[in-house]
C-alpha cells in the first residue's frame, strides 16, 4: 500500500498535501483499496467554503457510498473535473491524477493536527 510521504492524513483517510498557496485533497491509497472499484465521485461547487471535518462530497464504489470529509478547512478553488468521466482515476492514482479538490486553506496550521505519513501508516497497520 502506498503512502505519499509529502502529504498529511485525516483519520477518515483523506489526505492533504500543500502545494504553494493551495492544499490538494484526495483519499489515500488504503481508502481506495478498501472501497473497491469507484464508480462515482460527487464533489462540491468551486467557491464553496467548507470547514475542517465537514462533508465535502461522496465517493461511491460498487460496494458502498461513503462521505468525504475536509482534512483542512478552506475555500474550494478547483475540483478535479476528470473524475466525472473517469472516477477510476481515484483507484489508479489516488495521490496524482485521482486528486479531488484544491483548497485555499482558511488556517494552514490545521495541517499540524493531521497525521504525518508515518503515523498514518501505523493506523492502517503498515510500518
Amino acid at each position: 500500500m502506498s503512502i505519499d510521504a509529502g502529504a498529511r492524513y485525516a483519520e477518515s483517510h483523506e489526505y492533504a498535501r500543500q502545494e504553494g498557496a493551495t492544499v490538494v485533497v484526495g483519499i489515500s491509497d488504503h481508502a481506495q483499496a478498501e472501497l473497491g472499484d469507484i464508480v462515482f465521485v460527487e464533489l462540491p461547487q468551486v467557491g464553496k467554503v467548507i470547514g475542517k471535518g465537514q462533508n465535502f462530497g461522496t465517493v461511491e464504489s460498487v460496494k458502498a457510498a461513503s462521505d468525504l470529509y475536509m482534512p483542512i478547512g478552506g475555500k474550494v478553488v478547483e475540483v478535479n473535473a476528470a473524475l466525472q468521466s473517469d472516477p477510476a482515476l481515484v483507484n489508479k492514482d489516488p495521490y496524482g491524477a485521482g486528486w479531488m479538490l484544491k483548497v485555499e486553506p482558511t488556517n494552514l496550521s490545521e495541517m499540524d493536527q493531521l497525521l504525518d505519513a508515518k503515523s498514518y501508516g501505523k493506523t492502517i497497520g503498515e510500518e
Partner: protein
Amino acid sequence: MPFIANTDADRKAMLDAIGKSSVEELFADIPEKRRFPELKLPEGKSEQEVLRELADLASRNLTPERKAWFLGAGAYNHFIPAVVPALASRGEFLTAYTPYQPEVAQGTLQSIFEYQSMAAELLGVPVVNASHYDVATALAEGIIMALKNYSDRTEVLLPRDLHPEYKKVVELYLEPFKVELREYVGAPEVAPVSDKTACLVASYPTFTGEVYPLAKAAEAAHSVGALFIVQADPMMCALFKSPGAQGADIVAAEGQCLGNPMNFGGPFLGMLGTTTQLMRKIPGRLVGQTKDSADRRGFVLTLSTREQHIRREKAVSNICSNQGLTMLQTCIYLAAMGKNGMRTVASLCYDKAHYAAELINGTPGYKVQTNSFFKEFLISTPIAAEEIFDRLVKRGFVPGLPVSRYDASKPNELLVCVTEVNTKSEIDSLAQLLKEVAQ
C-alpha cells in the same frame, strides 16, 4: 396452529411484566360505553341482493360513462384502449409488493424500465424513476432534491396558480425544512429569483390552464444557480415542447391521464424525471438495463446507493414505494399509442378545447380568461358557477370545476376541460346549455 400465535400463558407473562391483570385493563382510558359499541348492522343478505344494492348506490355517482364530462382540474377523462387493462391484469403481472429481485422478476423490471424510457422521452429528460404516488408527492420530492442539493439555500418559488391540492402537499412535505415558500404571480420567467433560491417551480400548464413558455424561466433560475422544476401535464408534452427541452432540471408529471381511470381521485401516477447531472439525487427506485454473465440482456435496480437501504439517514429521500399498477398501465398505454398516437390524442384535445372555448366565448355573459391553453381553460360566468354546475348535472352535463370549491372569493369562475373523448355535439350542447342557464 392458531392465527394469533401468543397463548394464554404468553399473554399472562406479558401482563405480569407490565403489572396488569387483564388485557381489558389496557383499555381503561377509553370511556366504558365507547369500548364495545353496538354496531347495529342489518341482517345478512344474499349475494344477489348485495350486488343489486351496490349497483344502485354506484348508479348515483357522477361518472364520465353516463355524463358529458368537462371536468378536469387534475383528474382527466381520456380514452383507455382495451389493450391496457387486458394486458395489465394478466397473471404474470400479479405480484407481491417490491418485486425487485432480478432472479425472479425480470418481467416486472423490464416493464418498469420501458415505462421509464418512454416517460423520459415524453418529458424530455434523460432519467425518469419508477414512479411516485401522484404528481403532488413527486413535485414535493423534486423540491426536496433541490433543497438537498443546496443545503445553504432557503427559498422555494411556487406559482400562485399551482393546483391548490399540490400546494398543500408541498407545504406538508416541507414543514420540517427550514425553507420559505414564496409565491409569484404570472409567468415563471418574471419570478423574483435570487441567490437564496434553491428552486423555481413552474406549472405547465398552471391550475387555470395557462401555458407559459419555459426556456427564459430556466435561464433566469440557472443565472442565480437555482434549479428549475416543472410540474407538467404529460399529455401536453406530446404536442408542446417538453419541459426538458426547455431547460428543466427536474420534471414532475401526473401520469393518470396516460391509461389510468380517474378512480375517484386515486391511485394516480407520479412521474419524476431529471438530468444526468442530478440523477444520483433522484429519489425512488430506478431500473437499469444490464447484461448477465452469459451476456444476455437483463434488468436490475440501479444506482441504489442513493437509497435509504444503503445510505441510511444520508439518503436524499426515504421514499421507496412506487405505483406498480398505474405505472404498468401507463407503460402499456404509451407503447400502444406510440409517438404518433400520442400526438393525435394531444392534437384532438387541443383542437376540441379551442373549438369549445370559441363557442363559449361567443355566448353572452361568458368570457374565456385563459390566454394560451392546451385542453383546459378558465371562464367567467354570468351567474354562480356552482349553480351552473348543479343545473347542468341534472341535464346530463358535468360542465367543469367551480373554482369557488377551492377559493370562495371566486364564485363566478368555471374551469372547463375538453379531451378527445368529448364529441362535437356534446361541446355544442354544452355551449347551448350555458346560454340557457344564464337567461
